[in-house]
Each structure stands twice: as structure tokens, then as C-alpha cells.
């Protein structure tokens, strides 16, 4: 079992290196096919890691069965170990990552950014995949940090090189802001890890989970704040979200998909995996503030969406709101809230991935993502894509019966019933505000549909080149659509995994 995990960690890196090392220029499509095959293998591997049945038995957070454990010393003098493993929290995220990277590669077989250089793009996507899976499977704080950082430079390159080709200065600025803010955040997070190490004497997450750093003030509190800030940049939580709209809006389609679908999850995963179990008391101290900022993120993100005129920016801001829900769920520290956060992680990855694919498709067809320039009445011009956009919007606004609902519902339930140590009245206020946030979410998605899909087709003649849903797009998006519905009607599929978390 652990061979599979090591395999899916190493394979993308080796494959990327091999792709770069091939001296001859290979065709774009061949590179994309190669990437699809590699990421497909990784996807299969990650599915093989998925437990079959036996996981419902475990009971508490402290006693979570790890699978595929590899634990060897790496840098003894720094007390760093190479400790990877998966459990029910990380497994769905790993599969999500593998799936999205696979779909991105598949998508690139036919549709690539105008700038070309697909070979490097595919290689970078594979490196990102390895980094993200590594982060999700790391059981050592330092290894987590290293993997957390692996994705930075590739993602920076993806935005910087393949980004919006109309705005080179803008995409460069977006990429740099993204990478610099994230690096600052992760450096602060590292300080937090080191403080933990100073207190506990180990970087091992499993050990730290079993014997956490107690105490809600002093060093533990400082560590918790630093870790929370570092993760919050990645999540991103208001007011550290400022890099996100630009980065998403300027990134190429596959970049946006991975950024929103996978990279944002690193932050929330870190909060759940590290902050909550390792620093329980300090987390209780900062949780209300975390919840407060998350609520502000929900409201402010949704409000900002209402005033956006760019499709990709709008979807990017919607991520701020949705990640706010996840942050709120974590900050409740309750079973429902944590499960909601985990569920919303997956759901947001799927739905926002789909949304960014759609936005990319619309952008490719009109050579702009500005709502005013695209015009209205997509229902008439691109009926299938418009219908899918409506579907994805409904899913994203949390319509029950689709994947987006359960996460938000559980988060709100968690806020209604937060952990005993937390001030309940405050959380009730947060719950009500977050509830209003769902209405605002609905408002901006409906505004999007209204301004983009609906409208009098007579005013906007169909462009000559505008082809409706192509086969590769259908093939790429179908799994996301299917999962959106499947998780919507059968939330137990994931909830059950987490058992009595």
C-alpha cells in the first residue's frame, strides 16, 4: 500500500523531469496525451489507495488509522522525518487532486493557452500534482511545509507565462503577488511550526496529535496565530485574499482550475490537520476570530461578486466566500463544522473547477472575460455551455441536492452548535450572517446567469467561430458534473468516510 503512495508521489515528478529532459521538441498534443496518461495512472493509484469498507470502525480524532505509512528519518540533525501516510481526511482530497490534474491534462490535449509551450505546462502541472499530493499525505510538519512550497514556483510560472495574453503586465503582477504573499504566509507558518517544535520537541504530526501542545496562551497561542495566518493566506481568508482575484482572473484555464480546485484546499487542510489537533487550546482561543474573519469573507466576497464585471474575477471572488464557509466550519471545532469544512473542500474543488472550465471556455470563444464585451443571451448563442454554467452556478450557490449544499449546511449546523468551549452567542451571529451570505451568493450567481446567459439574442449576434460544447470539453467536464450530482444526492459517500471523526 505504501508503495502506491510513494509511487503517486514520485511518478509525476519523474514524469515531469523526463518530459523536460526529452531533447527534441515534441508536439503539444503528444505532451498533453503523455500528461493525461501519467496523471491518469496517478488517479488510478489514488483510487487504489481509497479504502474499501473497513473505515467506518474507527472512533476518535486521536485514534485515526493511517494507511500507507512510510516513516524514515530524513534530516536527523533537524529532527525532520520523511513520514507520509493517508487517512480518511486526506484521501478524498488526494483523489480530487489527481482527478483535477487528470482532467486538466486531458483538456490540454485539444485546448491549450494561446501561447503554446504545452510541454512545459504539462510538466508544471505534474509537479504541482506531486506537491499537492505530498502536502495532503505529509505527516511531518517540515515535510508538509516543503510540499506546501513545492507548488509555488510552478504555479507562479503557470500564471506568469500562460496567463492572460492581453495583459502581460497584469499577469506578471498577479503571479508575483500570489507567490510573494503565499511565501510570506508560509514563512510565518514555518515559525509557528518551529514554536511547536520548541514546545513539543517533535515535528511528527501523529505524535503531536496524540500528545498535543496544550495551553491557550503564550508560545502555543503565538504558534497558533502564526500557523493560522500562514494557512489563511493560502485559503485565503479575508483580508488576506487580495492576491486571489487577480491570480485566478489572469491564470490560464487549467491554472485557475487547479488554483481554485486544489491549491486553496492546502490551507484549509492544514488548518484541520495541524492547527486543530496539534494546538487544541490555542485554537479555541483564536477560533472566534477565525470565525469572524471567515464570516466577513463570506459577506465581503459575496458583495464583491455582485459588483464584478469579469467572469473569471467573479468566480474567483466567489471562492473567497466559499472558503469563508470552510473557515467558519473549522472555527466551530464541532463535528458537524469540521465535516462540513471537509465536505465543502471537496465540493468547492469540483464545482469551482467546473465553473473555471466553463469560464475558460467562454473566454476562449470571445477572447475576453469581460461580461459587457461578451454580451448576453448565451442561452441562444452557446446553449449547452450556458446551460452548464447555470447548472454549475446553482451547484455553487448551494442548492440542496447538489454537492455545494452539504458542506455549507454542515458548516452552519456547526456554527449553530459549536464546541463547548466557544462562545455560542457569537457563533449564532456568525451563523445568521453566513446564512445571509448564502442569499448574497445566490444573488450574484443569478446576476451572472442573467447578464450572461439570458437576454435578447437579437442584440448579440452569434459569433461566427463560436462552437458550442466540444467533445473534449464534454469529456472533461462530465466527471465533474456527475460528481456534483452524486455527492449532492449521496453525501454519505464522503460523510461516512469520516465516521465519528
Amino acid at each position, binding site marked *: 500500500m505504501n508503495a502506491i503512495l510513494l509511487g503517486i508521489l514520485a511518478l509525476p515528478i519523474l514524469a515531469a523531469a523526463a518530459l*523536460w529532459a526529452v531533447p527534441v521538441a515534441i508536439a503539444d498534443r503528444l505532451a498533453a496525451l503523455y500528461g493525461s496518461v501519467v496523471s491518469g495512472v496517478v488517479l488510478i493509484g489514488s483510487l487504489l489507495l481509497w479504502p474499501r469498507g473497513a473505515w467506518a470502525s474507527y472512533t476518535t480524532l486521536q485514534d485515526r488509522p493511517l494507511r500507507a505509512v512510510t516513516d524514515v528519518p*530524513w*534530516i*536527523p*540533525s*533537524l529532527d*525532520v522525518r520523511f513520514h507520509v501516510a493517508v487517512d480518511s481526511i486526506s484521501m478524498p482530497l488526494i483523489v480530487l487532486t489527481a482527478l483535477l490534474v487528470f482532467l486538466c491534462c486531458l483538456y490540454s490535449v485539444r485546448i491549450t493557452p494561446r*501561447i503554446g*509551450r504545452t510541454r*512545459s505546462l504539462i510538466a508544471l502541472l505534474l509537479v504541482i500534482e506531486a*506537491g499537492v499530493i505530498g502536502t495532503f499525505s505529509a505527516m511531518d510538519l*517540515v515535510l508538509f*511545509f*516543503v*510540499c506546501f*512550497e*513545492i507548488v*509555488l*514556483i510552478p504555479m*507562479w*510560472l503557470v500564471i*506568469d*507565462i500562460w496567463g492572460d495574453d492581453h495583459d502581460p503586465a497584469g499577469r*506578471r503582477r498577479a503571479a*508575483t503577488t500570489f*507567490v*510573494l504573499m503565499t*511565501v*510570506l504566509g508560509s*514563512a*510565518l507558518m*514555518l*515559525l509557528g511550526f*518551529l*514554536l511547536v*517544535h*520548541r514546545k513539543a520537541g517533535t515535528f511528527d504530526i501523529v505524535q503531536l496529535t496524540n500528545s498535543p501542545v496544550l495551553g491557550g496562551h503564550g508560545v502555543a497561542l*503565538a504558534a497558533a496565530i502564526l500557523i493560522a495566518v500562514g494557512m489563511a493566506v493560502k485559503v485565503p481568508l479575508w483580508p488576506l485574499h487580495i492576491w486571489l482575484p487577480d491570480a485566478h482572473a489572469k491564470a490560464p484555464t487549467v491554472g485557475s482550475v487547479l488554483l481554485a480546485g486544489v491549491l486553496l484546499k492546502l490551507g484549509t487542510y492544514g488548518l484541520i490537520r495541524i492547527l486543530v489537533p496539534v494546538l487544541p487550546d490555542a485554537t479555541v482561543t483564536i477560533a472566534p476570530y477565525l470565525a469572524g474573519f471567515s464570516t466577513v469573507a463570506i459577506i465581503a466576497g459575496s458583495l464583491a461578486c455582485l459588483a464584478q464585471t469579469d467572469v473569471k474575477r467573479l468566480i474567483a471572488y466567489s471562492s473567497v466566500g466559499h472558503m469563508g464557509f470552510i473557515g467558519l466550519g473549522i472555527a466551530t471545532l464541532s463535528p458537524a463544522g469540521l465535516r462540513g469544512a471537509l465536505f465543502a473542500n471537496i465540493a468547492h474543488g469540483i464545482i469551482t473547477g467546473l465553473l473555471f472550465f466553463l469560464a475558460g471556455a467562454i473566454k476562449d470563444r470571445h477572447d475576453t472575460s469581460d461580461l459587457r464585451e461578451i454580451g448576453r443571451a448565451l442561452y441562444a448563442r452557446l446553449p449547452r455551455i450556458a446551460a452548464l454554467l447555470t447548472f454549475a452556478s446553482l451547484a455553487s450557490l448551494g442548492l440542496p441536492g447538489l454537492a455545494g449544499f452539504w458542506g455549507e449546511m454542515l458548516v452552519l449546523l456547526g456554527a449553530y452548535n459549536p464546541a463547548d468551549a466557544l462562545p455560542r452567542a457569537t457563533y449564532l451571529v456568525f451563523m445568521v450572517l453566513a446564512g445571509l451570505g448564502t442569499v448574497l451568493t445566490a444573488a450574484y450567481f443569478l446576476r451572472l446567469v442573467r447578464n450572461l446567459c439570458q437576454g435578447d439574442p437579437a442584440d448579440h449576434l452569434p459569433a461566427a467561430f463560436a462552437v458550442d460544447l466540444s467533445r473534449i470539453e464534454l469529456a472533461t467536464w462530465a466527471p465533474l458534473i456527475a460528481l456534483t450530482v452524486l455527492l449532492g444526492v449521496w453525501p454519505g459517500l464522503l460523510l461516512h468516510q469520516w465516521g465519528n471523526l
Partner: protein
Amino acid sequence: MTLTWTDWQAIAVPLVLAVGAVVVLLVDGFWKSGSRELRHAVVTLLTSAAILFGLVFVWAQRGGFKPAFCRPAVEGPAECSLVFEPLTAGLWAVLLIGGLGVVGLSAYRLLAADVPIGEYHFLLLSALVGATVLAGARDLATMVIGLEVVSLPSFAMVALRRDRRGSEGALKAFLVSVLSTAVMLFGISYLYGVTGSLYLSTIANRLPGIDPDLRRVAFAAGLFVIVGFAFKIAAVPFHAWLPDTYVGAPVEVTAFLAVVSKSAGVAGLLVLVTAGVAADGSELRTVVAVLAAVTMTVGNLAALRQQEAVRLLAWSSIGQVGFLLAPLAVGDAQAVVGYLAAYVVVTLGAFGSVAVVQRHRPAGLLTDYRGMVRSEPGLAAALIFFLVVLAGLPPGLAGLFTKFAAFQAVIDAHLGWLAIVMAVNVMIGLAVYLRWVAELFRLPADDPFSVDIESPAVAMISLCAATAAVLSVLPSTMFALAT
């Protein structure tokens, strides 16, 4: 009764290097019949042999403890002027590797044609002698001598091309250095006055017990000594000579300054701090910490807008020194030596790459590197790797873990404010290197750099890249150097 005793093994390496220096000078001076190429090859081989001997010796003796020039002390254990111990071994290894790298960089067909070969290698070896002595020195007099023996040959090397730029660079470095020596010696004289000894261990023993009235004097003296080293390693605000000198010198000499000369300074400061002159919790450590914070911030910020590759590396090396000073301020030798090791290897590689480009594009602007991922993929990949290691991000795990060790040392010493400054500087530093990396990736380039790279350069850069890669995968080797 013995007055002094010496374990000759402790000074074998400096001795061999010194002998090698003389031999190189003689060979070059009296063997006029050979062609320039042949002489260059022989000189390079001789120099390499001397340095390699040093490396092998250090490897063989790495665990031992060998004192030299010792005498019984009035109180406590014997006082020694030069000691070979694991820390020394680590520092020597770093210095010698750096020296070897510079020799490799100056191999045939790489060194600028107007630099005299014999003198160059003689000066290089002499400086190495000084550097090794400095790293092993345990009394202030030896330290001063060592420091001067590092410094004076390097100024000569800067001016070795005998042109306007070289002489100006040398003058600046020289003037600043002499001032620093004077300040340092002034400090040493007071330190001697206060404690009555020049032996570091004795000074460390006596400092806590001195007359409270003299405490301020002792502090000022220690400050002056540290400032002397700060000049040497170009810590802000004693850094201003560095960019000018780096630009004025031939690239190989710049590499030497950045690698050997700077490492020697750090080694001296490390010895000074760890040997107890700046004891744990003393104000002097705060001085070093302040220096670290200011140095990394100013260095990185100033590097942010540079247009020339060498100047960018110059400023960024100031920033790197800031990071080196951080664990030094808390006396964590392991982190310092580890950091130094990664820094030396990567800086060599970076300067090597720059040297290749600069030979064909003398302007040395960052824009000259545009589009290199396509026109020169191998060199570009190596350069990107070096820069990423300097920035401390994956895949440059060597840089990441050395920075990590620095953070750990600082955090464990409860210097929270310094850690925050370091975190901010990680960000600024990344911004510095990413500008360069972005140029490398930018396509399409009007006039991409593409040449047949000289084989010594290929070998050198590959070697550096391979070493950095090994250090990235097995970072423990770096930290094993000083234990």
C-alpha cells in the same frame, strides 16, 4: 618544561597551502619555456592538488581534536592559538571547496586573458591560507593575522587585471578594509586591556568577572571587533564597497570574494561568537542580531531593482549574509556551517553561469538572459536551480533547509522579532530571484543567448548543480559538517 607545544597535524593544511602557493609562484616565474596553456594547466593542477590535499586531510581527520601553539594557562585548561576540531573541519571543508571551485572556474580558457596566471593562483592560495588560519584561530592576534592574510591577497586579485575598473574596485575594498582593520585592532587593544589576554577562551572566562566600570569598555571593544568582521563580510552598514568591488573585479575574482573571502569572515565571526567573547545573552549577540536584520533587509531590498546580473548577485549575497548572521547571533555553529556550505556551492554555480554569459555578453544585464530556457536549456535549468536554492524554495531544498535551520536556531533562542524579519526577507529575497528566473523563461526573445559553452564551465556548473542536488535530497550532509 615545555613552553609551547604544537600538534603539527593541526597546521598541516595551512602549511601545505602556503608551500603550494610558493611553488606555484616559482613555477610560473621561472618556467618561461612552456606555452601559456601548458603553464596554466600545470598551475591549476598544482593549486588543485594543494587544496585537494587539504580536503582529504580534513575528511580523514574530521572527528579529531588537534591543538597547536598551546601553553599552560594561569587558570583553567591550556591556551591554544590554533585548534583543529570538528567545527574547524567543517569550516575548512567549506573554504577549501569554495577555493577549489574558484580554481575550477579559473581553469584554462575561462580566466580572463589579461590576468597573470601564476600570481592569480599564488594569491588565491595565500588567501586560502589566511582563511584556514582564521577559521582555526583561537586567539585574537592569530585572528588578525589570518584576516589580513585573507584580505590583502584578495585586493590584489581584484586589481590584477590592472585596468581602471579593477583598480577602483580594489581601492574601495582596500580603504574600507583597512579602516575596518584599524577599528578592529583598536577594539582588540581594549579587549586586551580589560581582560589581559588575547586567548579567546581566557577572555571568555574573564569577561563575566570584570570590574563593572569596565563593562562598557568591554562592550565597546567587542563591538569594534565585531564591526571589523562586519566590514569583511559586508554587513550593512559596512557593505557599500561590495557591489562596486564585485562589479569592478573579473567574475572569477568576484566569485572568490563572494565565496572564500566572505566565508572566511563568517568563520572568524563564528569562532569569535562561539568561543565566548560574545556570550549567550550578551549585548554583543544583540548587536549581531541587529546586524543580521538590517543586513538581510537592506541587501534584499537593494537587490530588488538591479538590472545587472553581477550587481544583483552582489546585493543578494549581502542579503544571504544577513541570513547567515541570524543563526550566528545565537551561536548555532551547525546552522551557520550548513548554510555556508549550501551558499558556497550555489554561489559558485551562479557565478559560473554568469561568467559564461558575461564572456559573450559583456554588459551583463538581466535581459541578456531572456529566453534561455529554450536556447540554452541546460545552463538555464542549472541557473534556475541555483537561484531557487538561494531563494530557499523547492526544488532548492538545500537552500530551504539551511534557511529552515536558521529559523530554528533563532526561534529556539527566543528571538521572535528576528524570525519575523527573516520571514519578511524570505519574501523579498524570492522577489529578487524570481525577476531573474522570469527573464530566463520569457519567450520569445529577440536575441537569445546561445553559444558553445566551454567544457570547464560545463563541468564546473554541472558539478555545482549535482552537489546542490545531492545537498537538496540529503540535507543532513550539510549539517553533518560541523558536528
